[in-house]
């Protein structure tokens, strides 16, 4: 399985930097998945959840409010305004989920996008 580099940068620093198999992004025109060797693309990101499939097959979810993504063949860079990672230890999870919901609510763009993102966050929370 091929891997590509993924970077997620927020104003508070880099929150993800590593090799991944696949990443699903909440584009402004709809959700889309990126695999290695994807054609070069720049897109606006909407409120939603980035789902990362890591090299070992495990999934990590990151809730974001808005941002941009630059996709290149070997590397994907997400530049987002605010992000909360929804993964990790059991004890941190509940707090992370709450943070994620708060973050999504703070982005007052379109209600449907937020509602779908929040429901997705909840779903991810249950699956862990």
């Amino acid at each position, binding site marked *: 399985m091929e891997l590509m580099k993924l970077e997620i940068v927020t104003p508070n620093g880099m929150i993800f930097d590593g090799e991944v198999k696949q990443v699903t992004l909440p584009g402004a025109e709809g959700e889309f998945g990126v695999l290695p060797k994807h054609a070069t*693309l720049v897109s*606006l990101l909407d409120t939603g959840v980035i789902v990362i499939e890591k090299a070992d097959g495990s999934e990590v979810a990151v809730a974001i409010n808005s941002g941009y993504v630059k996709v*290149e063949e070997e590397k994907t860079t997400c530049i987002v305004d605010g992000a909360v990672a929804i993964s990790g230890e059991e004890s941190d999870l509940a707090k992370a989920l709450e943070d994620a919901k708060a973050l999504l609510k703070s982005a007052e763009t379109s209600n449907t996008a937020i509602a779908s993102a929040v429901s997705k966050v909840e779903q991810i929370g249950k699956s862990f």
Partner: protein
Amino acid sequence: MANLKEIKRKIGSVKNTQKTTNAMKLVSSAKLKRTEELAKRSRVYAAKLTELIEEIAQKMQHSNAEGIDNVYFKDIPNPKKVDIVFITADKGLCGGFNSQTIKRVNQLLSDYKAKDVKVRLRAIGRKGIDYFKFNNIELSDEIIGLSAAPDFKQAAEFITEVAESYVNGETDKIVLVHNGYVNMITQEIKEDHLLPVDASELELNTVSTSELEVEPDDDDTLLDALVKRYIEYTMYYSLIDSLAAEHSARMQAMDAATKNAKEMVKDLNVKYNKARQEAITTELIEIISGMESMK
């Protein structure tokens, strides 16, 4: 005796100054640590954003040679009206920090004047404002308080206003000048050409050569949002960078002042001891000669 008292008073006052400068140094170093952390965290974001926007600018220049229609990217070879935004500190006592920025702004002013370009100055920070007001140079914007406590919202509001005047055609170019932080002991004047986004000086080092796809695919939605974010964040980051540099400059200046005060106290102490010795000797001679004469 009067001399002795004088010296003693002087020692006291220098010691007091030393205490003040030392305290200011400690305060600055504590503040620097915080600001440096903030700068470090936002640096990655600013760098990535700049990288992205420059790459887009580059691709746009390559894809259509006859000129770019997006207002933020168009190439204006001979700007007639230039806005200079510069950041200084609100407070002094930080060595050459403010004067370096002012010097650069003055240099730019005379450069542009030689080329017959109309320049508008937009000042952030009290020290710069004071300087240009004193010299009767007009400022079209005066903002106090932002450079001491960078606030993203306020910075964004300010720069959006400046960018609007660019879009309206009131100005052809926006230059941002600030004294930036390099490390604890070095500051460096930085001059950014904020708008139009300049890609000509960049070397083409992109790995990918394929056509750049943009989504949403009417070019302007993404570009406008991206450029807006870019200038807002560059402005904000420059403020943080400037604040970090201010603290490091002040720390250095206060460190030097404390050292100088220490030296001065040392010299004064020697002087005081000499004067005291002199007085004692004179007194002794007086007493002895008095005794001699009584014999």
